[in-house]
């Protein structure tokens, strides 16, 4: 395992300053910060961010990207998340689908999708989970059957965040029946247009009453051969690789940061010793986890594949996001009112209601621990 301390170059610091200035100008004074990936879906914001070159920034210029590094993307992302900026429209495409298309997509797919992703105009959801497949992804039952010129896909995907707002989702499905118990064979990824005939999207109300999750039923949806992503039958290794990319970024430890900042703002400059202890301790952990997460980005840029490190950062980071909420709740000593005028209380209410998802999404912490523990033994 290798977590090396890393610092920022002057160019990287300059990038960070530019993003800070952009956000100061872009976000109105009464901006209500969002919590991580659950921040608002704001197409205009995504487009303006893209216009600055900060969406799809690690994609190569020939596909509309900017050829920047993982560290550059890390810096932009942490500024956006710490400010609670409305990133939901482009975030999954930027973090996950873009890199997957670049690595596994055909030339036609890259040329078709990547420039739109980098422009902040093409938004993706993820089509992995099903009613009977959560952590055990290899058990998916959505099936694609061969038809002239492509595939006919049928099945049900659930917990599909923002499917009602996004353009496409990448569906993990079975393209050939399971044989001799080889569970990981015969799975493929297909790019499905969420507006295609046969796609039915219904909301699954989220715990806090918001519309976030969807059920997406696919009923004989036609997907052309050109929209098979990567190798036919190679879906399993693509999906596990994809989950490794998405693991260790700032979205795995910064989701509840705005709650701490607003707590500090409302408390003012003089804290009791007890509150000072809570603030000091949480800040120290932010600082240390950030340095670990940054180190993984640097390692990716050096051409390494720090998958165990990334799993550790996500495991510790997501638990910390939840801990922040509980520490601040006990520090605040008030009954939480979701309609409170106090921005801190408003954010705390949202954080309490949504924080269980932090250690579930993108692979539960139980699965992450198994992945990481196997790596430790090596």
């Amino acid at each position, binding site marked *: 395992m290798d977590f*090396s301390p890393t*610092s920022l170059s002057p160019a990287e610091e300059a990038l960070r300053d530019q993003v800070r200035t952009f956000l100061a100008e872009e976000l109105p004074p009464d901006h209500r910060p969002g919590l991580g990936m659950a921040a608002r879906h704001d197409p205009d914001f995504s487009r303006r961010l893209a216009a600055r070159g900060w969406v799809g920034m690690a994609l190569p210029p020939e596909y509309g990207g900017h050829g920047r590094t993982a560290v550059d993307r890390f810096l932009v992302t942490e500024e956006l998340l710490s400010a609670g900026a409305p990133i939901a429209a482009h975030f999954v495409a930027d973090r996950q689908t873009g890199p997957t298309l670049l690595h596994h997509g055909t030339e036609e797919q890259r040329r078709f999708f990547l420039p739109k992703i980098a422009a902040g105009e093409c938004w993706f959801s993820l089509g992995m989970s099903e009613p009977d497949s959560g952590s055990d992804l290899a058990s998916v039952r959505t099936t694609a059957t061969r038809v002239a010129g492509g595939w006919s896909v049928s099945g049900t995907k659930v917990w599909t965040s923002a499917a009602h707002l996004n353009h496409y989702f990448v569906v993990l499905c079975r393209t050939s029946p399971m044989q001799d118990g080889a569970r990981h064979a015969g799975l493929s990824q297909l790019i499905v247009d969420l507006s295609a005939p046969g796609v039915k999207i219904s909301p699954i109300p989220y715990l806090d009453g918001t519309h976030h999750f969807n059920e997406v039923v696919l009923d004989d949806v036609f997907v052309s051969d050109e929209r098979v992503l990567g190798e036919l039958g190679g879906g399993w290794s693509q999906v596990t690789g994809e989950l490794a990319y998405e693991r260790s970024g700032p979205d795995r430890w910064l989701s509840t940061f705005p709650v701490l*900042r607003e707590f*500090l703002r409302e408390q*003012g400059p003089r804290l009791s010793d007890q509150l000072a202890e809570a603030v000091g*301790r949480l800040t120290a952990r932010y*600082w240390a986890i950030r340095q670990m997460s940054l180190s993984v980005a640097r390692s990716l840029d050096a051409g390494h594949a720090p998958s165990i490190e990334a799993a550790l950062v996500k495991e510790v980071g997501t638990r910390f996001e939840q801990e922040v909420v509980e520490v601040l709740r006990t520090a605040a000593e008030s009954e939480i009112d979701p309609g409170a005028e106090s921005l801190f209380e408003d954010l705390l209410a949202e954080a309490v209601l949504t924080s269980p998802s932090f250690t579930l999404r993108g692979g539960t912490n139980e699965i992450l621990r198994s992945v990481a*523990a196997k790596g430790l033994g090596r």
Partner: protein
Amino acid sequence: MSEERTMLSAAADEMFRDLCSPRTVRDAEEHGWSPDLWEALTEAGFPLVGVPEAAGGSGGDVADACALLMVAGRYAAPVPLAETGLLAGWAAAAAGLALPAGPATVAVGRRGDTVELSGAEGAWRLSGQVSRVPWGARCERVVLVAEHDGRYWVVSAPTAAATVTSGRNLAAEPRDTLTFTSVELDDALVAPAPESVTPHALMLRGALGRASLIAGALARVTELSVRYTEEREQFGRPVARFQAVQAHLVHIAEEAQLAGMAASVAALNCATALSFSDVAVAKIIASEAATSVARAAHQAHGAIGMTKEYELGQLTRRLWSWRDEFGSERSWSRALGHQLALAGADELWPRISTGLLDDQPC
């Protein structure tokens, strides 16, 4: 890490591996320390790394000294390595005092300590009592910062002149109380403190040193836990195959890495000037990790970990001691929290995201 620092760590690792086995540590706990190990370290110049060569030290910076301490922590080294160079040696050298030939320690001014420096050039006298002095009676000198005549003075007091009440920490490392009763000191032992040498600075260096030792010990605890749970079989398979045990291993690895990262970055950021927030973060993270890693590692090990014979206990007893020395996670959290509140909410993120500074020689 710079190539030189990597070589320094590798050389130190080799020496500790040869001369600081778990048996060495066990024996040292009977006598209070390991003179043989100390002699070898001294010959290699390790105790005075971080003290300028011009002052009689071995050269190198705070980051070099902390890199050595991380290695020493891995081996639970029963010697006053942090105290001699990073603390006492630094303060003495900065004040222009001669470095003691043998091991040296510091008193940072614990609650209830009294230090009274009186007299003037040619007729200095020292009275007072300092408690929980690391390796106190095993050291030749105790360096302290005393207030006198409206300013700070650095005093390099011979421990032979003190009355010693022995104390120890949970790992049987000496933590002595030294009482000075109107002890005469010649001019070579007292000098005006330069601006950089204050009780606060000594405290910062002490905390950084302990964070480095803790980080080293945690790395070793991780190795021991991974190895043991792979070897130990129950119900027909290695216990590391059980998810409940895996959860302990992952927790140990996470906290050990966090502490290592925080201590390394703080040491690098302090190479040119001490940084309060970096040291506070390092000590908070390291002390907290000490507690939870020790708990998880003992749980993963079962009863073997509870024996004096096995290496784990040598490390966990130090973790349980070092987490409180030079300020616990609570006291550093409190100090950091007050400072952050004064700086204001909008300063919080810029501070968190400052991280490792670019101009450090790393």
